[in-house]
């Protein structure tokens, strides 16, 4: 997994509530696809008109937000489907951090698995960053500093954020969860043996 330390750039505002993962990446783009190459299809249904041309009204098509690494979002961002392709598509578009008042739970988990940082911030702070960015026409950058757990707004205000320590460490170090869990292989085997004695029906019913 890609490590995450610090990201800086213009913060692109997509503040509508309940942006779902179907909108982030249509399922048709995930049939038989891999983890890469999805960037051009991120927000496809908002980003392009019916004839395939860019929709100039869509905020991420505005020149100052192209290639932006930070997305400012509304409540319940990433709700809906469990498709991890939503994170792959956002990363393919260049995003490395999403700042929102709340996230869909599965999307939130999926971010951490891919080196994308989702940050919970109050709605007024997100609006403030959006306003400061807009006032500077995108020329001033927002900084996300994971080690210090700070977001620095375009005008220089330092906003602390909280993040689960385990998830922060995994992002900073790019850890492989599976290898860590397999260190507990003996615990897992012991649990399974005890459970088999206590709840035989869970185990015996699936024997061939």
């Amino acid at each position, binding site marked *: 997994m890609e490590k995450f330390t610090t990201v800086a750039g213009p913060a692109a505002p997509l503040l509508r509530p309940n942006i779902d993962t*179907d909108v982030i990446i249509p399922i048709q783009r995930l049939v038989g696809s891999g983890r890469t190459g999805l960037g051009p299809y991120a927000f496809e249904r908002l980003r392009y008109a019916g004839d395939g041309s860019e929709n100039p009204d869509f905020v991420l098509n505005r020149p100052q937000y192209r290639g932006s690494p930070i997305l400012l979002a509304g409540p319940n961002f990433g709700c809906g489907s469990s498709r991890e392709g939503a994170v792959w598509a956002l990363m393919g578009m260049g995003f490395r951090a999403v700042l929102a008042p709340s996230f869909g739970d599965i999307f939130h988990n999926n971010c951490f698995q891919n080196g994308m940082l989702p940050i919970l911030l109050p709605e007024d702070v997100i609006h403030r960053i959006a306003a400061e960015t807009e006032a500077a026409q995108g020329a001033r950058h927002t900084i996300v500093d994971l080690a210090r757990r700070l977001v620095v707004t375009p005008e220089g205000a330092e906003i602390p954020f909280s993040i689960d320590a385990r998830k922060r460490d995994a992002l900073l170090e790019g850890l492989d969860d599976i290898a860590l869990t397999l260190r507990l292989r003996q615990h897992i085997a012991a649990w399974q043996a005890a459970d088999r004695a206590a709840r035989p029906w869970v185990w015996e019913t699936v024997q061939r």
Partner: protein
Amino acid sequence: MPDLRPAPKPDLPSPTLPATLLDRIWDPHVVADLGDGWTLLHCDRVLLHDLSGARALREVGEGGYSLARPDLVFATPDHAVSSAPGRTAETFPEGGRLLAGLRARARETGIRLFDLGQDGNGIVHVMAPELGLVLPGTTLVCGDSHTCTNGGVGALAFGIGASELKHVLATQTLPQKKPRSMRIRFEGAAPPGVTPKDMILAAIGRFGAGAGTGHAVEYAGSAVRALSVEGRLTLCNLSIEMGARMGMVAPDETTFAWLAGRDFAPKGAAWDAAVTAWRDLRTDDGASFDRDLLIDMRDIAPQITWGTSPEQVLAVTGRVPELAAAADAEQRAAWEAALAYMGLTPGAPIAGTRVDWVFIGSCTNSRIEDLRAAAAVLRGRKVAPHVTAWVVPGSERVKHAAEAEGLHTAFREAGFEWREPGCALCVAANGEAVPPGARCVSTSNRNFVGRQGTGARTHLASPAMAAAAAVAGAIADVRHFAA
């Protein structure tokens, strides 16, 4: 159920305190305490489907790992399979390639595949309870957000992404933090025309599409106790549409009677022992929840969504909202976008809105009781000539049971197409789609922009409401269609 943990941990509730159903399933599944509130949770069952199953199995090997417990992993193609009568795996070629990959990996790894057209095949969240693969008190994960459906039998079931799926296949566990607890009690008798779908849509409308975020929801109260298992599965299915990864109903005699004799349910003495343990899977009187909510069934009428989030829902007697009623600028902008996408006029009655398509199916509402409810509305009536109407049974078994009862004839005589099992128009990942601009009353779970096809306009409703809309050719109040 006996306490299986090697040592109780101080952050878990003491056995003497009142416990919730969540505590009673979660706590015994903790394999290890990882610190900071993290636990290593055992996953008793893993379900795979065609869209991501082959990739997940391949990635485990590519990472240098092997499958931890092939005997606990089960697969079924559903997402990317055609629902056309007479379909084969190749009818939708992209799906055919995914299925070929899943077949190859299933053979290699020794996991059980319920293949297309075989007994047991179907939508993953329909076939798992149907076969008894999910049992009360078990943990189940699947790379699909509607895995919460399985909570209807009293299991802890939740959707995960591709990377977590790889983790669970390699270890049979997942590092997890215990969610906060939430209860929604539905009290009273269901008014006429009100189904489990209406109950959960009304709850999402009242509490919001993000109300359950970070929570596991237990559905309780007299109206839930009165539901069949199939109704409970529908109720739990839409938990994720309220933001909750997990929804569940405590198992009871209704559950046990429904599960008895199913393929993977225990038999004989093992069944008796299991039922004895399952009777303890309930929330104690006096247990407290982080959020505890109440809905009076008298306040619920048949529901229909008007917008592009499941929280944008109305009683069928209601009117499309005026923008002035929005709570703030963001909600106003969201409503404005939803109204434009849906082609609706603020203030207009929702009933009477002309529809082009009707879809009865999906892991929400494709079980035999759903099909019976829709067929009851259709008998002696015809689908309006301008409406394309599909019914897609949830599994091979549902299809055969329905055909044995003659439901397929009732649907066909009314003008519905009787199709093959799969997810079909709920997710439109199989080459089938509602055309751009067409309006569809659907028994599925998501009315998101483009969900049923680019530009498709979705109105979520119960199977009976969908049947009524097909006959009327417009959104209609099912209470005017007495069987």
